[in-house]
């Protein structure tokens, strides 16, 4: 099996032993999700990159506290989110989530996916505004569950709350969102 990528557990073990190359592979595998988790909190591209970088370094320093065999990604993402929260608390500023320019499938000429097919630019703007208006406890859970498409379990670990709380906040958050958006949105 020469050339086969190392299993994540092997990479973690080697990283714990000081193998920076092994940890770089873990960074490569998780950096895309990590920067999104950071962005959900800091709402700034450059700062999300900085947060992600700092969080990876902190995660490396905390590898001796990682429980072998447990899922690595949510453990890592919890560190990312905490790092991002620390930045926001210190800067006391907050921006809104931004939509991509030219992201309207109608005007951009791109072939619409089954999901985007039924969502106009105006509707996306309204949905985002409604999410932003939610209390933080619901916004965080819905953001991780649906904007980042995490499982309940992974959301629970990343946010540091019990899975049951994720489930109940998801239900209540959707309920509030539905109420905010009106009958047009199921």
């Amino acid at each position, binding site marked *: 099996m020469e050339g086969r990528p190392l299993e994540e557990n092997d990479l973690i073990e080697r990283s714990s032993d000081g193998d920076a190359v092994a*940890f770089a592979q873990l960074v490569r595998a998780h950096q895309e999700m990590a920067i999104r988790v950071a962005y959900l909190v800091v709402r700034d591209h450059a700062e999300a990159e900085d947060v992600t970088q700092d969080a990876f370094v902190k995660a490396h320093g905390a590898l001796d506290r990682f429980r072998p065999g447990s899922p690595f990604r949510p453990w890592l993402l919890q560190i990312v989110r905490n790092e991002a929260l620390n930045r926001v608390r210190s800067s006391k500023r907050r921006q809104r989530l931004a939509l991509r320019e030219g992201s309207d499938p109608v005007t951009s000429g791109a072939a619409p996916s089954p999901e985007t097919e039924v969502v106009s630019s105006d509707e996306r703007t309204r949905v985002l505004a409604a999410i932003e208006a939610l209390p933080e406890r619901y916004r965080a859970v819905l953001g991780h569950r649906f904007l980042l498409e995490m499982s309940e379990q992974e959301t629970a670990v990343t946010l540091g709350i019990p899975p049951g709380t994720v489930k109940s906040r998801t239900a209540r958050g959707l309920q509030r969102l539905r109420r905010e958006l009106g009958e047009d949105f199921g």
Partner: protein
Amino acid sequence: MTHERRNLEMLLVAVAGQIDWPEPSPQLEERVRSRIEADATDLRRRKSRRWIAAMVAASTLVLILVVFPTTRHAIGDLLTEAGVRIGVIDEIPTDTPTDLGLGDEATLAEAIEHVSFTLRLPDALGPPDGIHRDGENGVSMYWDGPIVLTQRSPSRIYAEKRLVADTDMIEVTIEGGLGLWIEGAPHEFTLVDGDGDPIEVTTRLAANVLLWQTAGIDHRLELTGDLDDAMAIVDSMNEGG
């Protein structure tokens, strides 16, 4: 209702696809790796600095002892001339030595031939129970008690004595010069070469020591008795045959 809820969830996922998510820069991975490697280097340097600091601290103790107080200065000169350096350590190793590290056994005649100076014998102790060639130009004599008397011509070999903090050092006048009486807690005695590398480490766990120099020859008397016992032995020392 289930159908409606599914629609809202799908709508959220669709919106997620249109959010202007940041992309990790191509440099992110390399920057993390560089910082980790730099941290590891810093850690090694900090450990190294701590080790050096510990060594410097030990050296400083030696210098303070030798340089600062006037009496210590005189003792320091004496000890330096006698090839002895003093350091303080936290504790003495607890393993009891089985070998006093006195060197090869010799007869009195062989010992006299071994050194370039006139060997002296203490009448108060009678004939030694053992005689040893101690280094290139030294002799140690041993009596049950135990008592050990070492006479050595100063050379590039230095004796480094490490003491625990509660060991008492008393300056004494002996044979018209300055001497040092060390008593109390056990101490460790190490022979080091001119570069400071240990040649021989001997831990003496139950002995007090009198150090002095006479006629350019280093003397070291080790015994379980007190200073009066030591001075009585010194007073009985005559030139050997």
